[in-house]
């Protein structure tokens, strides 16, 4: 069974540009989560999608947005890129949203570099 996949692996942009990151969850999983992992820091929760709807978002500005498609894949969009947006963006999926200790399975991440 394939795990969570993310594309691209690496992305280089300049300040002010837009970045689009993509995630395919494990087959059968309906929930997708996005996290930002900046250098030297732990993971910061960005967004949670389930059944095509945004269910929760972390403390990030509105220029961080995304969506979930009918096939449960997801994309994260970052507008008006700033230097401090440089980070590893991790996507995770789970099968039963909102249930206690349900496990989130992580993809390998997309390394975004803003120049």
């Amino acid at each position, binding site marked *: 069974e394939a795990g969570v996949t993310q594309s691209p692996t690496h992305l280089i942009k300049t300040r002010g540009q837009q970045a689009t990151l993509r995630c395919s969850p494990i087959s059968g999983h309906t929930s997708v989560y996005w996290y930002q992992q900046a250098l030297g820091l*732990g993971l910061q929760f960005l967004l949670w999608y389930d059944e095509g709807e945004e269910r929760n978002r972390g403390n990030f500005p509105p220029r961080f947005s995304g969506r979930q498609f009918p096939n449960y894949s997801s994309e994260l969009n970052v507008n008006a890129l700033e230097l401090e947006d440089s980070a590893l963006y991790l996507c995770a999926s789970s099968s039963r949203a909102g249930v206690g*200790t349900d496990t989130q399975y992580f993809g390998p991440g997309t390394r975004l570099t803003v120049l």
Partner: protein
Amino acid sequence: TQLLEQSPQFLSIQEGENLTVYCNSSSVFSSLQWYRQEPGEGPVLLVTVVTGGEVKKLKRLTFQFGDARKDSSLHITAAQPGDTGLYLCAGIGIQGAQKLVFGQGTRLTINP
């Protein structure tokens, strides 16, 4: 805002030594998870502890959840070079696993 403080942030020890990583908070969590992350990969779940005072063992790794469910520890016995990696603790709030709160991570290096 729930925060998790992990310590130490960096740890470099010799093969065969024992070590403990701590994860502390002023908030109560319904459960706590420990992950390990290798370079170029996403975090992989090692264990979930749910009950206050719970102890779980995974080979040479021992995980403990504090009685008050505010803290946790990871103890590695006789560390090996293969244990090298970034260890992350993550708390699950009362609202469920939708929004994991992660610690900053402990970068562990085991020298042969």
